[in-house]
């Protein structure tokens, strides 16, 4: 394999890695405030991309993207308010099934609205053939847009959680929900906010990568599995970890194409997921188990 080809694979991997990273970060935001893994996370990305494509027919692209992000945020809030908010201490199994149901509902809604066709936004700058030449590697400007968006999202979230009052309240809520509630923090609203936030970043990423990766009503489940892999690999709850893991999985997938039939590409990240889960099951939640036993 020539160096140039290696770099080409690397770039492709980083592009896909962006979207996995953002889905992983989205999982983390909701997991941190609620302890729930939201199986509908991938659908937020899909909804963002699809809505933006539709809005772009009537308004200019920046407005379409802003509109799509807002619509998806509203849907995120709606999901939380109708399906999560009023349940008191639901069992994990119940929450899993509910979010799976939400994921199917959103996907079927998308199918009704947009049909089965594959869509994408146009390239933000230039078109599919325009490329920047970086030391022999041809790079689509859209890749830079994607990477830039990913970095912006992570920086924004870091600032939000560290330096704003609401962000700090959300962290308090993550550390100990009951204690946070006792301190007068409106935990329920923060949970809604976590859904809104993770829907918003998912939608934004969905818009930015759509010119390269395309989007369709049924891309959500695959994204959810990959995003989950990334969240676990990076350490559940850690945004930086998720970003690193996202790029790792993206690159791994992209290189796998040179070794295995393309049909197996999706199986790669799943194999990674299973490998992590099997090799380090105790490392992933062992400490918490001990804590629970001690509290008893």
């Amino acid at each position, binding site marked *: 394999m020539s160096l140039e080809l290696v770099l080409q694979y690397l770039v492709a991997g980083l592009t896909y890695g962006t979207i996995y990273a953002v889905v992983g970060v989205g999982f983390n935001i909701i997991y941190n405030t609620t302890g729930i893994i939201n199986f509908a996370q991938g659908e937020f990305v899909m909804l963002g991309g699809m809505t933006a494509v539709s809005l772009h027919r009537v308004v200019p692209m920046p407005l379409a993207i802003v509109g799509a992000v807002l619509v998806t945020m509203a849907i995120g809030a709606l999901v939380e308010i109708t399906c999560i908010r009023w349940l008191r201490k639901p069992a994990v199994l119940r929450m899993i099934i509910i979010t799976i149901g939400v994921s199917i509902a959103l996907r079927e809604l998308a199918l009704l609205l947009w049909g089965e066709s594959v869509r994408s936004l146009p390239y933000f700058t230039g078109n599919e053939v325009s490329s920047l030449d970086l030391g022999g590697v041809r790079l689509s400007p859209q890749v830079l847009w994607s990477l830039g968006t990913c970095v912006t999202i992570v920086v924004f979230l870091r600032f939000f959680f560290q330096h704003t009052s609401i962000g700090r309240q959300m962290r308090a809520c993550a550390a100990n929900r009951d204690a946070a509630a006792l301190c007068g923090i409106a935990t329920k609203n923060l949970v809604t906010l976590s859904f809104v936030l993770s829907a918003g970043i998912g939608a934004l990423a969905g818009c930015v990568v759509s010119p390269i990766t395309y989007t369709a009503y049924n891309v959500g489940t695959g994204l959810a599995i990959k995003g989950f892999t990334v969240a676990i690999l990076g350490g559940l709850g850690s945004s930086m970890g998720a970003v690193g893991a996202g790029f790792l999985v993206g690159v791994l997938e992209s290189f796998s194409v040179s070794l295995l039939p393309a049909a197996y590409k999706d199986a790669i990240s799943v194999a990674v997921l299973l490998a992590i889960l099997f090799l380090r099951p105790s490392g992933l939640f062992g400490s918490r188990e*001990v804590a629970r*036993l*001690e509290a*008893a």
Partner: protein
Amino acid sequence: MSLLEVRGLSKRFGGLHAVRDVSFRVERGTVKALIGPNGAGKTTLFNLVSGVLPPDAGTVLLRGEPLDGEPSHRIAARGLSRTFQQIRLFAQMTALENVMVGVHPRSRAGFVAGMLHLPSTWREEKDVERRAREALAFVGAGELADADATSLSYGQQRAVELARALAAEPELLLLDEPAAGLNMRETAELARLIGRIRERGVTVLIVEHDMGLVMKVSDEVAVLSYGQKIADATPRAVQRDPEVIRVYLGDDAC
């Protein structure tokens, strides 16, 4: 040979040394109590002995055989049964069914036998039920058999949990604060019950805060403080031990 021997047991949680180099013995047919102020490491010690937690150092010997690294279900099968500080009855099962689970290590039917419902399986089920009813009757809860276990009163739930532990016909019974939440009358009944359990030849290791109960039922008392054993003697001797009075009874008097 002692029925249970604990040698140099230690367990840390992060910076907290919950149990530090604790050794003691429980002789067959006796009742031994573990006492100590809150946070002394009594429950952790229980979890180490019953295999719920792995120790960092030290060994636990049952009948002289080490229990190191054995999972709790296998320790149970070797004749050690326990109750929990916070009652852990199985929800959506009757009291009788709960106690029948206790007979698990003393019965055999597996998946295939269960699916085919063979005559031998059926006979074994009858036997399991009989043993469970006996255990319920023994703790004085025979009439609760068909009640939903988690809908019972606190005292009744304690009784059912004790019956469940006894139904396994253990050699060694671990009771984790059995009197917690009981009123005086129920505590007095419990004391009599522990006496009857001992008469049946079951050895008892008990963690308890109620000093009256401990002094009445135990043959020996070990005292823990900050994870370390500071005394191990007869109830009378422990009550006179100045160190114990300082760290434990003194604190308690405040």
